[in-house]
């Protein structure tokens, strides 16, 4: 069913919602309860994607394509751009990936890509009691996961969406003191020096400050960002919403 896939959020409405890189929402997960309960699902965490598998990056689907836990492979727990890149048969080189990304930026794909909104079946993991604060958002949830990272796990600089935007990203972590979430910055004097393989440029990224453990934030993934963990068992709530959620999210910002 792709009838509503052509809906999108106009740029001015997107900007109205994303007044900062991270906008706190009125959702807070109890970290203690979550950490205890998530152990029941430990066996269903799988390595994130097929690259950089030396890194301790694992995912557990909350919403995937069939509602099952234990799919192998589990596309909900791959970087979706990588999943599409592999499945569209591009040559697996840096140049091939750059070519693929350019085509994305210029909307060179029509119905060929798996999008966040194509994943709409909740798994049993979404019924965890500790995730009840998400209850009013569940009807809008599309491709969503719990991430579990160890020391030096990271996502390289990337962006996840582009105009016309067809979904929204919510994000949170249990351990803000053991990870950085960073956005590309204009301030050359202060930040983390990064090499961006896609832009082939030296860029500066600034870490978000004052992230509250368990708080769920609306995240602006139009912007270049990356993430980096420097401790063990760092869980992240990696949630996508379809655009029918727009008013609900707008009223849920605090």
């Amino acid at each position, binding site marked *: 069913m792709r009838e509503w896939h052509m809906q999108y959020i106009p740029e001015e409405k997107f900007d109205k919602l994303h007044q900062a890189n991270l906008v706190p929402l009125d959702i807070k997960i109890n970290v203690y309860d979550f950490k205890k309960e998530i152990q029941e699902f430990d066996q269903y965490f799988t390595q994130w994607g097929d690259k950089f598998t030396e890194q301790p990056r694992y995912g557990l689907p909350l919403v995937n394509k069939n509602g099952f836990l234990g799919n192998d492979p589990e596309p909900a727990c791959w970087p979706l751009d990588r999943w599409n890149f592999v499945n569209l048969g591009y040559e697996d080189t840096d140049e091939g990936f750059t070519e693929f990304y350019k085509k994305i930026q210029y909307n060179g794909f029509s119905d060929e890509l798996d999008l966040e909104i194509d994943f709409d079946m909740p798994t049993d993991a979404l019924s965890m009691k500790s995730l009840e604060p998400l209850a009013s958002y569940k009807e809008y949830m599309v491709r969503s996961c719990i991430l579990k990272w160890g*020391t*030096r796990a*990271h996502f*390289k600089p990337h962006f996840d969406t582009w105009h016309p935007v067809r979904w929204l990203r919510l994000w949170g972590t249990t351990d803000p003191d053991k990870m*950085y979430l960073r956005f590309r910055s204009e301030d*050359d*004097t*202060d*930040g*983390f*020096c*990064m*090499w961006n393989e896609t832009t082939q440029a*030296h860029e500066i990224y600034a*870490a978000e400050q004052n992230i509250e453990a368990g708080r769920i934030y609306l995240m602006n993934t139009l912007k270049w960002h*990356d993430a*980096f963990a*420097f401790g063990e068992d760092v869980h992240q709530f990696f949630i996508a919403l379809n655009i029918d959620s727009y008013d609900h999210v707008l009223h849920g910002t605090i």
Partner: protein
Amino acid sequence: MEFQFDVRSKTYTDRTWDDTVQFCIDHDHWIPHNYQKHILEIASEYGVYRKLSMLEDGKGMRLYCTLPSNDMFSEWLAKRIDYYHEVNDSETDEERVGSIPYFPNSFQKRCWELTEFTPLIPEDLFWIHLHKAFIIAKNECRVNIHAFNLNARMAYAIHS
């Protein structure tokens, strides 16, 4: 891990700069593109943060750096030491004896004079983790003690 150090231009000794951006640009052309790309990739794998500010006399800048843990500093430096040996080059050839790098000078630009390297954690802990880097690196590295501030030098004398 937390430390800072000062760098001044060796090339333009009489010149002053208004901002760090121009200071960096005026010295960037000494750095091979692939070398810079690789050391940035290493930095990004170990959470290296840095903040730049101009020195009061405008002839250089201060770099304040942090890494998330002391062990990650050791691992980061070990990677840098091994990369130095892999390419058999660095950003400076001063202080070199044969192909052995010296910390900290060999890991900054050759056109910069590096002074006042100041650990901002207890000095003894700093030296332990510096030497841990030397141990876990596959290749050799030595210390240029003259680049350090007085307290760090005194701690080094006691520690060694």
